[in-house]
């Protein structure tokens, strides 16, 4: 066949649309970050480069309190969700199936099938009663709710990792008279570690992302970073909001870059 110069990979227009797509994705974020460095008070009127709004944010106690709340909440919820999801994943993988496996699977994925706003009002109805009865107004309600909806996100990568794992190594350990606990600690857990780490990070980011459930369940005066931002946004848009948003953007860039480098080293 004479060269028909055919390349099915080259779809007419695909490159153009893809470039447009990347530009559309990034222009708003670049503008957001650029605005956060503006020395002037009015957004969009450039008056020079400055870290003014970052300094303002770092001296803003409401923001710092919200950031601390978010960090504590995301860490605890992601940790608990990861522990629970790891146990559950060990139960549901690497077997020919057992009574109730399907049911467990459905329950573990259930929070994904319900829109956030629905889970938010469902928990509001119940926890409002608990709040009234016990008088407790701490972070506990948010921790319980976040742990719950983080479980399926932590579960996914851990389960995927377990399913791709070689069982013969554990069998070998057992053949060499390793106890079940010893084999788990020295063989299974190290092999599973990347999955657990991925699960934890996903859960952490998902918890940090939540506005709806937190804003319904939080006690008065209690703010997380997203609910604080949402509240400020309602009042009025400021360069400080852009600075805080840019900080959040930076966190996600660091997380993605970190996990990217981590996976590249292994291959």
């Amino acid at each position, binding site marked *: 066949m004479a060269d028909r110069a055919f390349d*099915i*990979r*080259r*779809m007419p227009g695909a*490159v153009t*649309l*893809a470039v447009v*797509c*990347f530009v559309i*994705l990034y*222009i*708003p*974020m670049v*503008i*957001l970050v650029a605005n956060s460095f503006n020395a002037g008070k009015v*957004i*969009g009127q450039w008056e020079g480069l400055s870290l003014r709004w970052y300094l303002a944010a770092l001296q803003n106690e409401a923001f710092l309190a919200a950031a601390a709340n978010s960090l504590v909440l995301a860490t605890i919820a992601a940790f608990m969700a990861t522990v*629970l*999801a790891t146990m*559950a994943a060990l*139960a*549901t993988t690497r*077997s020919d199936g*057992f009574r*109730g496996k399907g049911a*467990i699977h459905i*329950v*573990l994925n*259930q929070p994904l*099938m*319900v*829109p*956030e*706003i*629905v*889970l938010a*009002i*469902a928990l509001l*109805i*119940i926890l409002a009663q608990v709040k009234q009865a016990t008088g407790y107004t701490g972070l506990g309600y948010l921790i*319980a*709710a976040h742990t*719950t909806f983080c*479980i399926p996100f932590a579960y996914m990568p851990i389960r995927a990792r377990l399913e791709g794992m070689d069982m013969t190594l554990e069998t070998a350990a057992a053949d060499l008279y390793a106890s079940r606990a010893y084999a788990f600690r020295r063989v299974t857990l190290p092999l599973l570690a990347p999955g657990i780490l991925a699960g934890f990070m996903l859960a952490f980011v998902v918890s940090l*992302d939540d*506005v*709806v459930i937190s804003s319904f369940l939080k006690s008065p005066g209690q703010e997380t970073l997203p609910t604080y*931002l*949402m509240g400020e*946004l309602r009042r009025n*848009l400021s360069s400080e*909001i*852009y600075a805080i*948003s840019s900080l*959040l*953007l930076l966190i996600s*860039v660091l997380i*993605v870059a970190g996990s*990217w480098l981590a996976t*590249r080293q292994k291959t």
Partner: protein
Amino acid sequence: MTPADTRRRWGLALPAVAVITLFSILPLGVVVLYSVLTPGDYGNVRWVLSGEGWFSVLFERDMFDETVSLSDAHITILFRSVGLSLATTLLTLIFGVPTAWFIATRAPRQRGFWLFLITIPFWTNLLVRTIAIQEIIRAEGVLNRILIGLGLIEQPLQMMFTNFAVLLGMAYVFLPLMVLPVYAAIEKFDFRLAEAGYDLYASRAYCLRRVILPLVRPGIIAGSILVFVPSLGAYVTPRIMGGGNSMMLGNLIEMQFGQGRNWPLGAALSITLTLLVLGALIWYTRLTTGGRRHG
């Protein structure tokens, strides 16, 4: 599997199952119950059975003569929710599929970089991305400044708080959810199959339709459901981009628990939304398992 092993596995799964049952399944059951109770005077409910909550999802009663009519406001919001979610899915398909195609057809070494560019917005806080897209189209925003600067318009265009704003916002924030699964499907595709088709004198369009599309279809369906489902239940993006003018179901539900003070109606609307989402998910499962049977 021995009964002891089954017991051990149940024991391992139990804590996670218990937490989800207690904090997600049980509360959902309470929502179902609340949807058939009577609204209390200051929010909450009175424990008297009533169909009023469900009735008000679609209908309203005239304040004076008790005549029943369809609730225009609710029906508009219902149609807007479904319509904007479908439009969002379509828009992300138009931009997402060529982008996924573009990434998958790069040299393997370059793919990582382009994927990295898609994963950053994917991992970035949804609220932050909504704030970013808001800056583009708000009255004193970038687009209006540019248009005024160029002398094309004199007064800023009011783009915020419209269906267009909500659509733009949702398409912007959910776009990565379309690109990633479609990319995963195209990446697995063996391009020699398409070349074989072409060598057998199939036209480019024919190749695309009969060879590539069937193999990439699962990714397109997965991407569509990943965009459609969160769009339908969206709250934050329509709240910011649409305000009170362009509400979606999520915002209507929130209103019933806030100033609306009609918890049973809010509960009934929540169940409606959940059923719509479940319907989409069931349709998705049918479509994917059905495809496997034929393929």
